[in-house]
């Protein structure tokens, strides 16, 4: 009995064992996560603030920022509406093939970004299925903004649905049924009961969706054609500047993206801390 009581009290040997584990974990996190992040900002400011702001004020840099915002502004709402519709169908009704639908929603997460771009080239590119038809009607999807949007929509498709489905599953449909028996129309029920109940999870999903939409590289790289000032999003612009050895320029644009990542992490952490219970039904996450 005495032995058990004693063993609960941290002995000296155990405390130092803890310290070793903590030290290892912290060292790894600093070397692997903090250092790359710091490198972005240090490299960006290597030649001073003047060079940094000048690099950002460059017209091509500004164009890439505008294009990134545009692509995200189109693809995020599209996937938000899709996420709501898919979650409603998946969690409020039983139908055959539901498991398949769930698997297809997750599919883009397991496809390599380059393949995600490739499939649209094969569909809409000059030699693609619809290539000749599009050329005839003088519509350009690939190597143009619509292609960037399509590839971005593909890679960010699961984010919102993935947040909403487990939460709405856990919440069940009783509140919506109550709203119906009290006389609410479909849209009244949706806007007054469903949406307020999932708003934080929705915001969470939109946040992650947006971060990925603005930061996607591989998929948009394949469909972009890299036309400066026209089809270069920020990550693509980073690549071009880097390959031209304009390190300050590359890291300056990269620093904006890194800031976006930090803001995303901060808001995400805040949401988890403040509304953890309302997000609690989330599945173990990836991406």
């Amino acid at each position: 009995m005495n032995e058990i009581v004693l063993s609960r009290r941290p002995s000296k040997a155990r405390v130092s064992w803890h310290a070793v584990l903590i030290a290892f974990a912290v060292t790894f996190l600093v070397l692997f996560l903090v250092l790359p992040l710091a490198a972005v900002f240090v490299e960006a400011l290597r030649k001073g603030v003047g060079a940094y702001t000048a690099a950002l004020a460059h017209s091509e840099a500004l164009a890439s920022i505008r294009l990134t915002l545009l692509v995200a502004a189109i693809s995020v709402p599209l996937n938000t509406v899709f996420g709501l519709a898919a979650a409603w169908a998946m969690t409020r009704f039983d139908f055959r093939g539901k498991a398949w639908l769930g698997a297809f929603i997750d599919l883009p997460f397991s496809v390599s970004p380059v393949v995600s771009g490739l499939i649209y080239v094969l569909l809409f590119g000059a030699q693609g299925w619809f290539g000749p038809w599009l050329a005839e009607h003088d519509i350009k999807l690939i190597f143009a903004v619509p292609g960037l949007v399509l590839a971005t929509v593909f890679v960010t498709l699961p984010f919102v649905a993935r947040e909403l489905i487990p939460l709405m599953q856990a919440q069940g449909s009783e509140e919506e049924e109550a709203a119906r028996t009290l006389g609410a129309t479909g849209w009244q029920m949706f806007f007054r009961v469903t949406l307020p109940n999932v708003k934080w999870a929705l915001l969470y999903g939109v946040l992650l969706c947006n971060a990925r939409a603005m930061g996607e590289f591989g998929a948009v790289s394949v469909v972009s054609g890299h036309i400066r000032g026209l089809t270069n999003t920020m990550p693509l612009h980073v690549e071009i500047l880097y390959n031209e050895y304009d390190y300050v320029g590359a890291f300056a644009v990269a620093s904006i993206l890194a800031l976006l990542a930090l803001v995303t992490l901060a808001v995400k952490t805040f949401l988890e801390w403040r509304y953890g219970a309302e997000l609690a039904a989330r599945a173990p996450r990836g991406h």
Partner: protein
Amino acid sequence: MTLELSHLHRRFADFRALDDVSLSIAPGEFVALLGPSGSGKTTLLRILAGLDFPDAGDVRRDGRDLLSVSARERGVGLVFQHYALFRHMTVFENIAFGLRVRPRAKRPSRAEIAERVEKLLKRVQLDGLGNRYPAQLSGGQRQRVALARALAIEPDLLLLDEPFGALDAQVRVTLRRWLRHLHEELGLTTVFVTHDQEEALELADRVVVMNQGRIEQVGTPDEVYQQPGTPFVFEFIGRVNKIPVKFAGGRVQAGDQRFDADPLDGIGDGSGVAYVRPEHLAFTTTSLDSGWKATLGHVFFAGSVAHVEIEVPALGLTLDAELGGDEAQRRGLAAGMSVTVQPRHLTVFAHDPKTGQLDPSRRRVVHPRYGQAALARMR
């Protein structure tokens, strides 16, 4: 408002929730749907609310088809088992919801809504709590908010799904008496679902006992308790002794006793089961000719009543008897005493010779005739 349910059937995958259920409910009635889980009672309630639909059969309200009316337009007040309060709305907003979602033409003004909500809050004894959120209320309070919310749309039919299921024992008793009074004040037709027989017997005007998707018996609380129509009702409601019997020459034989009673017509020779409530077993320490010879087992004093185990060798059974606590004290009952046991009356069911199951249609109540002297001593 009269409800007429006829020949309702409902199947889920491989489970028969409702199997040819017919029932009519009179205006102002307080009806309990009583049964174990899986008996179909909740499915029936959800069909009345418009949240489920039968595969066959129909439901009429005052002669008009109710099934073609959507849940939204039915105007039926439903209180969910776990209340289903809108968690992001205050108590006030929850109650006002049904009024606020009305089409503009039928929607009361802001002031009218506020007035009606306040009135309802008072009615359910929650005045002053309108600004709280559901999470800040106790279980009993939430239940009353759910009720007020359902009443706000002025339904003529109120449905409650296990209304007291999630409450602790004390709140449960207080709240259900209060609900009974409310029902009488409002003059609504009320249907509630419960698996708690005490709740059903105490509250309802009429109890509908359900089992495996079928109605076993419909009757007043007194009827279903005193004159159960089927073996299931006997075993589900109250406590009961089950004694194997034989039928021979229109008489009932149980163990070494042949009960002297009016001959049973229509029940041929064969076997069956006799049901006797504990309080209908009389016993005396005097040795009598008629009645089983038995020994008292443990005597459980439980306040106002006492439960007595009676070991009957002739039956190979231990029977339960029940009598007043005072009386048990006065008679000085203790384990090991020798007694003679006589059932005051028995309800017997004969086995169906084909299926081997008890046949509810071959049910008889047997009033044995004991010698007058014996009866007198039993008192």
